[in-house]
């Protein structure tokens, strides 16, 4: 659109000296052509970044500051102690330990078993591979509410309530369908010749899986692992159902009940706690963002 409308604008201007006019026109053209894009970028940046900046400033304000100065103002005293309060009094340290203990074993299980199953479903030849794949696919659709009550009964009967085991087991089970599906789609990209060559060289099927196919899928594994990590780390439903004491709370459940730790709402520590959880995921995401973007734009999701 821009080329025609801009030249029309420029034509309506009164003529100046030829050479000056030419350079002026060129820079005006470039400026006006880029202006809408730049303005829109700025608006988008404000929409996404301003709430986070506001959050961060809030985490450094005293209770008096938060309640009595305008919401967009800077803190009068920079209260870095809010972070200590969130970590210690607010038990955030404990919650992060719990989340880590529950999520990482489950994540390791899901990735190892999910990619093994995806490999066998996609690259090996057997009659039931399609039906089994469909069974896994059905699991993506089922809402967690449909499995919560029987699981609660089982964990209660077996005596697992009061530990983090219910979370590990449930995360492993619910993470598998999507992982199997995504890994199977990624494995489609492995050329058959490579597997044949490895087989001719005398590698067994497990050797082929661990030393040939899986290393080729490094980016895919990373993408799937990150997606699953965020699902598990940010989960609220399962964690809320199976954690019955403060000692077992994960980060999300802890945050939800955060104000309870202080009696009344202490805004500084609350905002500091939100900042810590937000900051942690942001750092992780920034470190791995290239792989994720590549995995998302070139992989299974695209179908």
């Amino acid at each position: 659109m821009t080329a025609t409308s801009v030249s029309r604008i420029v034509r309506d201007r009164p003529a100046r000296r030829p050479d000056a006019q030419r350079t002026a026109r060129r820079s005006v053209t470039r400026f006006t052509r880029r202006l809408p894009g730049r303005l829109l970028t700025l608006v988008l940046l404000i929409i996404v970044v301003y709430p986070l900046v506001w959050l961060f400033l809030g985490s450094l304000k005293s209770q008096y500051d938060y309640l009595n100065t305008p919401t967009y103002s800077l803190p009068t005293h920079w209260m870095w102690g809010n972070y200590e309060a969130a970590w210690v009094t607010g038990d955030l340290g404990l919650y992060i330990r719990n989340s880590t203990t529950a999520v990482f074993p489950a994540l390791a299980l899901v990735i190892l078993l999910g990619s093994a199953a995806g490999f066998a479903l996609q690259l090996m030849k057997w009659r039931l591979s399609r039906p089994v794949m469909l069974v896994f696919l059905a699991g993506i659709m089922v809402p967690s509410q449909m499995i919560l009550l029987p699981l609660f009964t089982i964990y209660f009967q077996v005596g697992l309530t009061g530990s983090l085991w219910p979370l590990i087991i449930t995360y492993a089970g619910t993470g598998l369908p999507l992982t199997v599906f995504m890994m199977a789609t990624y494995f489609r990209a492995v050329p058959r010749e490579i597997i044949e060559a490895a087989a001719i060289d005398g590698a067994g099927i497990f050797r082929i899986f661990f030393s040939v196919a899986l290393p080729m899928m490094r980016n895919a594994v990373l993408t799937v692992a990150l997606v699953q990590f965020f699902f598990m780390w940010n989960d609220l439903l399962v964690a809320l159902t199976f954690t019955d004491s403060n000692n077992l709370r994960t980060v999300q459940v802890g945050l939800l009940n955060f104000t309870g730790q202080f009696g009344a709402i202490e805004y500084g520590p609350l905002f500091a706690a939100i900042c810590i959880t937000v900051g942690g995921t942001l750092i992780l995401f920034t470190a791995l963002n290239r792989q994720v973007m590549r995995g998302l734009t070139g992989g299974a999701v695209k179908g």
Partner: protein
Amino acid sequence: MTELLGNKRAIMTLVGPALLIYTAVMLVPVFWSAGYTLTSGNAITGYHFVGLANFRELLSDPNIRTALSFTLRYAVVLTIAQVVAGYLLALFYVFILKRASALIRTLMFFPIVLPTVAVALMFQNLFAIAPVNGPVNSLLQAVGYHAIDWFGTAGHAFWIIIIMDTWRSMGFYAVLLYAGLVDIPESVIEAARIDGATGLRLVRHVVLPLSFPVLLAALIFSINGTLKVFDSILALTNGGPGNATTPLTLYMFNTSFSYDEYGYGATIAFLLTVICLIVTLALYRWSRTSGEEVAS
């Protein structure tokens, strides 16, 4: 070679563990939960058979009607909002920013990885009226309007939820759809431009039909997720005011764990699963037929 790739024992070893855990944690509980719909009671008191009483209650329960209508309204409105916003963003990346879009793409993607509870708490305070005005109400007052109690009425609360979830997800959908848009060959766009298609007409008649498959995938992805919404609403409004923003998922959770009625809770979960199943199958069939229409 065929022997190696058809080795039954190897297949069992590779698929077996995943299938076993999946069956124990998901498949068996699904049918078990379906069995609960015919009972009353809970894990501590035990269960007894009540026949179809739960389903009769389902039909006459006014809370179900509220929850069902909220769930459907939320799913439709949010799906439209996030897919449209994501698509506009993707168009913006591809046609206006072009190669300079990498950084902004990443920044816009950020919110989706943030913990939902943290984002919900942030939005509660962004839209707060008491004890002190949040930024939104401050802005309203600065331009001469009254501050609004955003979480006090059902209508406002609904739109705050939509705004928050759109804020969270539009960058994610933009990346998904961007992947579809950059796949459109440059030559096709160029040819359309030479034929005189520009701006909106180019998008409407060339870009939109060509990105239809990936748009459809985003739509299915979105509907499937929004029907199961739980975290963001629990943390933002906890279903209130009253039960005006309580989706089926949250109603099931409260019925089961606040009122200890597992039988009825399982029945609500069953209803939700049936809805998910019907919608998924319908979308799947629709996507196949309309996919063929576009192709031909």
